[in-house]
């Protein structure tokens, strides 16, 4: 990794950390407690940004997959792996935090509501696609296979988003045609949290891409070493 890229990674990490500290201060000290749900409603300021990051990650994975199929560049492949993996981590977190919010409010840990079910399907699909990628053989085939899976999988993402508008569901609708329907301090806190988690996503993508480049370097060096060993054996015969 170049020095310039390293510097950008440090700047991004610092910004994400700073934004997170501001978000935590807002969630714990600034935002008012919701009258009906009480303190548990504060999960909202993490649950929504985490869901946003999961959607964004799958969108980036889909775009990088398309980019790979068109340009066959390894950087697109590294981006699609990084994004899909982060999307899986964040959608698992959405399911867990949603469950912790549902228990005191809906009196159940889980219900087969359309939003919850489609989110679970989305998580299972992307988790399985990461495993399938590892099962494929050859760098090029892995990348092509992964690109196709990321493009096909993205079809479910708008469905997850629209479920609460298309079907009868108990999941609340946050964005309506009339706006957010939030008290101004709640809206400010939500926006800051969304920005912080987006920065965190960018930061994680950078770290994961770096790990992927190193893994590729190891595979290349191993290939060179093996090729040289074969040459050496051939010379002995």
């Amino acid at each position, binding site marked *: 990794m170049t020095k310039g890229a390293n510097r950008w990674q440090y700047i991004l990490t610092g910004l994400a950390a700073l934004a997170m500290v501001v978000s935590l201060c807002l969630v714990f000290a600034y935002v008012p407690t919701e009258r009906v*749900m*009480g*303190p*548990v409603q*504060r*999960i909202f300021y*993490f*649950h929504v940004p*985490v869901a946003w990051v999961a959607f964004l990650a799958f969108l980036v994975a889909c775009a990088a997959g398309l980019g790979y199929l068109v340009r066959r560049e390894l950087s697109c492949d590294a981006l699609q792996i990084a994004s899909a993996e*982060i999307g899986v*981590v964040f959608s*698992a*977190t959405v399911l*867990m*935090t949603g469950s*912790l*919010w549902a*228990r*005191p409010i809906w009196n159940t840990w889980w219900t087969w509501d359309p939003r919850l079910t489609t989110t679970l399907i989305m998580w299972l699909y992307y988790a399985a696609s990461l495993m399938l990628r590892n099962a494929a053989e050859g760098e090029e085939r892995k990348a092509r296979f992964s690109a196709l899976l990321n493009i096909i999988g993205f079809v479910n993402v708008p469905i997850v988003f629209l479920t609460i508008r298309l079907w009868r569901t108990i999941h609340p609708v946050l964005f309506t045609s009339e706006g957010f329907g939030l008290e101004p301090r709640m809206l400010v806190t939500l926006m800051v949290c969304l920005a912080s988690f987006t920065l*965190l996503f960018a930061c*994680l993508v950078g*770290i*994961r891409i*770096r*790990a992927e480049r*190193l*893994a590729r*370097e*190891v595979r290349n*060096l*191993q290939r*060179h*070493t093996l090729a*040289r060993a074969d040459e*050496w054996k051939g010379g002995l015969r």
Partner: protein
Amino acid sequence: MSNLGYFLAAFLVIWATVFAYVYGIARRQRNLEQEVRALREVMERDQPKS
């Protein structure tokens, strides 16, 4: 309504997941860096002397 415990649990879940993920990547990266160094040493050692 006292349901602060659920909020704190959700808060912990988010940060534990993020830290576990970052720790996993950092560990993988450290192992890969070691492997790159070791492989480069092997390649340099076996370089044919001209």
